């Protein structure tokens, strides 16, 4: 039965991810708060489950000429270096502390997104 619940958490995160609203920021807290999955495990699951969806989305976007390749190497290479550093930072924190930091990150993100959504004219 618990597999069904993990699947449902994935669907909810996936719907938001597919809509471009940041699925990981929903899947990680769902796994942590409701299913008591450890913070490190929730983050690992989010990282790896993002890959197949991103590949499909990317193929569609490239076909639609929506991807901007300019300076992409200047972004990705430093990103790879700092994400490895980030992985070691996460590893050095306890699950308890990492979850608290993640909570703070979520609050900041939601305030930032709320403000930019209110400002956006449509």
């Amino acid at each position, binding site marked *: 039965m618990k597999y069904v619940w993990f699947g449902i958490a994935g669907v909810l995160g996936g719907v938001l*991810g597919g809509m471009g609203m940041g699925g990981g920021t929903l899947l990680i807290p769902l796994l942590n708060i409701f299913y008591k999955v450890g913070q490190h495990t929730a983050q690992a699951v989010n*990282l790896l489950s993002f890959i197949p969806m991103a590949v499909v989305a990317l193929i569609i976007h490239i076909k639609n000429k929506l991807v901007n390749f300019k300076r992409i190497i200047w972004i990705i290479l*430093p990103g790879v270096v700092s994400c490895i550093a980030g992985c070691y930072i996460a590893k050095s924190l306890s699950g308890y502390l990492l979850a608290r930091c993640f909570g703070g990150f979520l609050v900041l993100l939601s305030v930032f997104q709320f403000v930019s959504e209110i400002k956006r004219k449509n």
Partner: protein
Amino acid sequence: MSSKQKQKNELRTDKKLNVYAVLTGLSAGIINGVFGGGGGMLVVPMLVHLLKCPAKKAHATAILIILPLSIVSGIFYAAFGNFNLEVGIPAGIGVILGGTVGALLLSKLSSKWLTIIFCVVMAAAGVKMLLF
């Protein structure tokens, strides 16, 4: 303006944009590595405001940036023994199904209210994780 000066100015803007590009990459990477997600929500506004990328292209381009970062971070997390197949396989299948639905819904729903609801849910989850 002489063409020499113009060239010089262009070169300067070019250099500045390269610095912004490196900054965008560094910030996306550190967030992706530490928090295992959420990098995209940082990359999109940075692409739009710093690198003058149109909003629609920024969403698609963000995926191209986050994908290699997630692969690298995912490998490190798995190597540290954090991945769990019992959670990962059902959640992964769910993400693929949900992702397809979300991509199809995107064109049909007005996103303003949805984004605001999402912000409230995210803030509630954040406060819960931060304080309790």
